[in-house]
């Protein structure tokens, strides 16, 4: 049985320093190898969601244009048909007033301002309550569905706030925050861009993205 070293401040201190240095080394190495993947993460997630949210575009902006209104801002990825004419946009909008934290929503609008689809790309709401924003507002039930409605002809707020949309039972805060993000997306899109005015300007020189089936979506893991 090998004898253990005797305890002394010097011994202990030396051991601590060595172990800490080795730890830092290990962590540094791992960080070095994973850093590139981590940088690309949000991009992959968003691209995979684009098709979900806007089924039939030919081209979409690789990089968003950011538009501000007061404290709020949205990312706008314009969508184009095969002739490079703008047919709508995919908007990434955030609400900071979720029940637990931020809610990020990706919404597809066409030229007329119809909501084609949405996808909540990040939230921390409670499972079974606020988390239902992911599907609630797509449900065919009366007063819940926001898909297919024209954003400037419908009041996109909760029923008990003068609007037309039913909140999630027991999750009013999350519902309100979600609708805020959607409403905001439309308002800023309308005010600051020409996407919704049926104009087909080609003064933009955004690079088109390859169609989704060419993207390496197989590396996406998770939900």
């Amino acid at each position: 049985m090998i004898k253990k070293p005797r305890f002394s401040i010097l011994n202990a201190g030396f051991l601590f320093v060595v172990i800490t240095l080795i730890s830092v080394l290990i962590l540094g190495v791992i960080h070095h190898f994973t850093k590139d993947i981590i940088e690309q993460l949000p991009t992959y997630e968003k691209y995979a969601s684009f098709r979900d949210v806007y089924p039939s575009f030919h081209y979409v902006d690789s990089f968003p244009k950011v538009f501000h209104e007061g404290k709020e801002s949205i990312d706008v990825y314009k969508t184009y048909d095969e002739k490079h004419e703008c047919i709508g946009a995919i908007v990434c909008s955030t609400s900071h007033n979720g029940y637990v934290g931020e809610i990020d929503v990706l919404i597809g609008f066409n030229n007329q301002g119809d909501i084609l689809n949405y996808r909540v790309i990040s939230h921390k709401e409670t499972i079974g309550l606020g988390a239902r924003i992911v599907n609630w507002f797509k449900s065919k039930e009366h007063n819940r569905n926001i898909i297919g409605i024209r954003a400037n002809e419908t009041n996109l707020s909760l029923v008990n706030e003068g609007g037309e949309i039913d909140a999630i039972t027991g999750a009013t805060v999350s519902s309100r925050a979600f609708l805020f993000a959607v409403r905001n997306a439309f308002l800023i899109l309308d005010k600051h861009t020409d996407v919704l005015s049926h104009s087909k300007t080609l003064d933009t020189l955004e690079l088109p993205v390859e169609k989704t089936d060419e993207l390496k979506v197989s590396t996406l893991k998770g939900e």
Partner: protein
Amino acid sequence: MKYLILLLSSAFINNVVLTQLLGIAPMMTGTRKVDSALKLSLVVAIVLILSTITNYLIEEYILYPFQIQYLQILFFVLIVLIIGHLVQIVLIKIPGLIEQFEENFFVLLVSNSTILGTSLIVIKKHVNFLESAVIGLGSALGYVLIMIIFAAIQEQLRLEPLPKNMQGYPILLIIAGILAMAFIGFK
């Protein structure tokens, strides 16, 4: 005024133990008697406040500027270890306050998810220095409160007959659950 609300919310509404479920292990094992619970929780409270502030400063001025956030856990654990040790030494030196800490105590103190958890929460919320101190203080208060309540309950419990299988952890957990339900009402 904002700070008062922050204090109350981190003490009651987002109570570290019963809402964020962070202090369960020491709550189960360290609260046999009210005065030992009081001692333990006060020491944890001190370490909690000190480490939250220190960890915040480290994150703000060392980890973030140099982009070495992957070292976060390592640094935080080291800080909690050091502060825990220092607090123990200081408290023993004060005459008559505490005679001796059991071996077990240090383990409970240091691997306490409340302390580490509060530091992580404070960073996640992107608050400023004063707010992080307030949150630390609030969590500490909430923690002490829960420990005392639970110890009092445990003392009462000893007088009650219980089915064999419910004795020990099961009934404690269920009672903790009912307490948690009360705290959910604050939201």
